[in-house]
């Protein structure tokens, strides 16, 4: 790490030393770029490997500098015509999308109440929501499972989805954002005689669109990639989500090319989200610290 340079800023040093420094800085920048290219390649290689393996005939010798002789879509089409894989994909979409819709709605409502309403115990309630951040999901896994199984929720969609909807990060983020909206807007709506629901639907939801979009991406990724809860609650093949299904393929020693083809397809929604909304994701982590 001897190649670090100062951020590009106008220097007030003398002309000659400035010249020398600029030349040194150019050299350092080349090194920096080379290192970053190297780091990026190392990071991306496993992705490339999945797709290469998914497109190779099974058992083909696939060592990095040697691309397979023939490209085949057999693995992908075999995976896509397997009924359980399609079912897992559907389950993952249901799990993720229903969660996004319900969490966005309930978190916006709760965030609005915490930011703009006074009611007895509102502060204590907010803190008690935040306090659950201290309790790792794994610590309450057993009682959650017992609770849901007593309510006959094992191997059902509600049993899979509903317990994951209590999300304090979402509530807190919405509260912070709504708190920052100008008071005047709410006053004006009141003076116009808008009812509580009208204010929420016509004012709060439209104004929070940017933060709802960010939160929606995160909630989708959290659920799409979730593993432990679906693993214990979805025990039949037809209730499995993609992550659970993939892990069973891996354990059943299905042909490698088939596993890789399944993995490749399962990651596509995440890659699409990433490709389209990268800027959103990156900025929101820097500003709000949302964490999966």
């Amino acid at each position, binding site marked *: 790490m001897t*190649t670090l340079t100062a951020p590009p800023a106008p220097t007030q040093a003398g002309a000659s030393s400035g010249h020398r420094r600029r030349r040194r800085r150019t050299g350092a920048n080349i090194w920096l770029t080379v290192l970053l290219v190297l780091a*990026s390649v190392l990071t991306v290689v496993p992705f490339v490997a999945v797709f290469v393996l998914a497109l190779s005939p099974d058992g083909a010798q696939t*060592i990095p500098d040697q691309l397979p002789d023939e490209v085949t879509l057999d693995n992908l089409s075999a995976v896509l015509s397997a009924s359980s894989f399609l079912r897992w994909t559907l389950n993952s979409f249901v799990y993720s999308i229903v969660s996004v819709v319900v969490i966005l709605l309930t978190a916006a409502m*709760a965030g609005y109440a915490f930011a703009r309403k006074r*009611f007895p115990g509102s502060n204590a309630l907010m803190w008690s929501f935040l306090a659950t951040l201290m309790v790792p999901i794994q*610590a309450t896994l057993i*009682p959650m499972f017992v609770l849901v199984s007593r309510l006959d929720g094992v191997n059902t969609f509600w049993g899979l989805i509903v317990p994951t*909807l209590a999300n304090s990060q979402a509530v807190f983020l919405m509260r912070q954002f709504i708190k920052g909206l100008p008071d005047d807007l709410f006053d004006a709506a009141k003076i116009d005689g808008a009812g509580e629901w*009208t204010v929420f639907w016509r004012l709060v939801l439209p104004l929070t669109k940017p933060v709802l979009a960010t939160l929606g991406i995160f909630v989708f990724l959290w659920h799409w990639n979730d593993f432990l809860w679906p693993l214990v609650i979805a025990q039949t093949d037809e209730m499995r989500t993609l992550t659970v299904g993939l892990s069973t393929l891996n354990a059943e020693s299905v042909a490698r090319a088939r596993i*890789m083809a399944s993995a490749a397809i399962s990651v596509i929604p995440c890659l699409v989200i990433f490709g389209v909304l990268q800027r959103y994701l990156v900025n929101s982590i820097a500003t709000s610290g949302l964490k999966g």
Partner: protein
Amino acid sequence: MTVHRPAAPRPSWRQRARDPGWGLLFVLPMLVLFVIFRYVPSLGAVGMSFTDYRLSGEFTFIGAENYERLFSDDLFVDSLRVTLLYALIYVPLTLVVSLATATMLHHVVRGRGLFRGLLFLPYVTSFVMAGIIWTWIYQSDGLINGLLERVGLGPAPFLTGNQAMVLGSLAVVSVWKSFGYSMLILLAGLKNIPGDVMEAATLDGAGAWGKFRRITLPLLKPVVFFVVVIETIAAFQVFDTIYVMTGGGPARASYGLVYMLYDQGFRFFDFGYAATIGVVLFFVVFLISLVQRYVLDRENT
């Protein structure tokens, strides 16, 4: 909807929110979810840890027996050691990788957005997916061993070797999958360091390494500390990669705390005992957060 600016003085907060019913009504759906699926299970975990709760739903209170059994259970002591060793490998590794990449991104002139995107890419995948790819990468006929073979080195037993090797290999997978998050947090921290401080150091003839060590690191300390804490907590919760890649093996070399919880709960259906492990996990994570509070408070005074 027409929105007018009120000419008269604004109605006070209290007037506007005089009806407490609406506030509660808006919180209600989330509150119900929290009560049923967060508060009740949290208390339930503690309650269950004092019972011999079984799959059938029958149980009797057995006092602190689960805790006595746990602390004299070699399996538990080993799993705690496995998790600790894993954290000792994972946390420094992920810190170094995310700090190095964040620093490079901060200083690079061209292509920052592209590099940032590529480095962040694995963060959007699942640990299951990461586990499946890296299982192949580590296999005896996989990517790394294929390369090693080219230069005449024998296959390395990444997932079947000794404990340090297996845990190190697992840690690398988690670092690959999640360093992007810490990288972005550190990058935001670097951006907040005032430029004139660096400028002054440059004029004083400080070298790049000197500036990094004497200015960047001290100013970045709170952010680095935050990253260390969240990554330590993440390390204690490691499960998915172990489940997919090693199943706790070989010979329990990667039998971590959460894996033991899952194993006791869903293979032996010893729910009371598994809930006890969950309570211990909570206290471990709680302790890490307390240390964080303590250190941050001391820094601020």
